[in-house]
């Protein structure tokens, strides 16, 4: 909990939720993306359509899922389809407006690494791998990245491009249907690609965060937008809805 009365996870979820517009179709992962998407659905975007890669479409979970394939997601869905179908008929076909992604590393051009630290053949750390992310990044209309900021995770160049942002040299997205990472939301602020260079730059800091701290936690010389903003603090209503959701979740998962 910060002195402002909310945690860094909370401000990440709340800022991300504000990026969703009502009626958008959103491909969601577990954890903060799921919090953000459901907070949007329970507040300003009641008709946002949530899709989880397990095949649940239009789901309205009462509680947050702990896995991508919780029964709650299937029970509350408009329909449930197979995994091949969710990736072909729904994601690949361009029906998803917004995809959420995270990773172990992100670089200045928004490329993501969730595969290895070190070399692929002899990794120092073997990470879980890409899963659904490469095709989410390729096919979703845009991608929202949520990732806690540190010089270890925000690196000059990722060890391995698991999921492409704007390419190794920021060359762009000609070969992809979607616009790629349009925003990166961290515990310190918000980064967006510079439209001229595709390089991520700082466009907002969260309340109470010093810009120099953000630069320190970034592994490349981070550009700062001339019109750098300060994030609107979480409202009481946003915090109330998010906390109620998390409390319902905690009670349900503690149950028999």
């Amino acid at each position, binding site marked *: 909990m910060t002195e402002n009365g909310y945690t860094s996870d909370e401000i990440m979820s709340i800022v991300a939720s504000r990026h969703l517009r009502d009626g958008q179709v959103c491909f969601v992962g*577990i*954890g903060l993306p799921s919090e953000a998407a459901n907070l949007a659905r329970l507040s300003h975007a009641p008709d946002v359509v949530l899709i989880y*890669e*397990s*095949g*649940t479409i239009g789901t309205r979970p009462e509680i947050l899922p*702990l*896995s*991508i*394939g*919780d*029964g709650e*997601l*299937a*029970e509350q*869905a408009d*329909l*449930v*389809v*197979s*995994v*091949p179908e969710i*990736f*072909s008929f729904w*994601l*690949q076909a361009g029906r998803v407006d917004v995809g959420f992604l995270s990773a172990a590393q992100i670089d200045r051009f928004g490329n993501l690494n969730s*595969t290895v630290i070190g070399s*692929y053949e002899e*990794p*120092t*750390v*073997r*990470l*879980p*791998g*890409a*899963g*659904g*992310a*490469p*095709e989410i990044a*390729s*096919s979703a209309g845009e991608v929202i990245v949520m990732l806690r900021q540190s010089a270890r995770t925000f690196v000059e160049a990722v060890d*391995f*491009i*698991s*999921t*492409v942002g704007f*390419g190794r040299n920021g060359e762009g997205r000609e*070969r*992809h*249907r979607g616009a790629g990472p349009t925003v990166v939301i961290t515990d310190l602020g918000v980064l967006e690609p510079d439209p001229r260079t595709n390089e991520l730059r700082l466009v907002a800091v969260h309340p109470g965060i010093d810009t120099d701290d953000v630069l320190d936690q970034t592994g490349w010389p981070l550009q700062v937008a001339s019109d750098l903003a300060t994030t609107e603090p979480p409202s009481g209503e946003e915090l109330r809805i998010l906390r109620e959701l998390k409390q319902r979740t905690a009670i349900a*998962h503690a149950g028999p």
Partner: protein
Amino acid sequence: MAEFTSLRAAIEDLVPDGSVVAMEGFTHLIPVAAGHEVIRQGKRDLTLIRMTPDVIYDQIIGMGCAVKLIFSWGGNPGVGSLHRLRDAVENGYPRPLMIEEHTHAGMATRYVAGAAGLPFGILDGYVGTDLSDHTNVATIRSPFDGEEVTAVSALNPDVAVIHAQQADRRGNVGLWGITGVQREVALAAKNVVVTVEEVVEELDLRGPNGAVLPSWTIDAIAEVPRGSHPSYSMGYTRRDNAFYTRWDAISRSREIFAKWIAEYVSGPDDFSTYLAALDDGTLTSLVDDD
């Protein structure tokens, strides 16, 4: 035509050493009891296929049963790493593990191609990633408009192992809820083993996305209630989220892992010891003092 048999007999007959095995179930309906039987019988040199290796393959890999893993996401869902998988890849312990890595969409396309009897499948995928340089994919052009797509080869495992909610007396298998790639892997594989929660007179698919695999597409069915623990079987059991968290501690240490497997998997004659420990709350007692 499916034969009703014991899980032991099914794994003995249909999962020989050196075979290519796909045990599927996407978060839901993971055939964990069947995985334990593979360990219990000390299978060797398996090629394991599974989109999300999960706890089931962490255990099999940790016991050195596998030479190769074909997969797309190898974490402990919602928790973190699969430590036995990492130990095998990073340190070759207890033996080196070759990996062939794909994306979820790629793996799904490969199973669909296998089920459809095609040599390969196509998708818009892998583009711009480093993975495409480290795995077996190809680019082909549309003969109609020249657009490029990615091709992936079909998966046709020697044997598919799945867990489902029900089988009827004739051996038709019914499942519902999140069905992942189970129908596809069953139709892609040369042989199919199914464990079920319950054998019923008539299938009663009481949930969304109901699916039936007819008896003549299946080789062996074993009734193994709660055989998907710690995942779940919609309509029968709930996901044991606490177990997944405890698995992190059990699997982190080579020694605790070995002790746990000996006590609950390889030592006992069958899955009942594991279930008894689950019921009396001792299943994770090796690490409950942490």
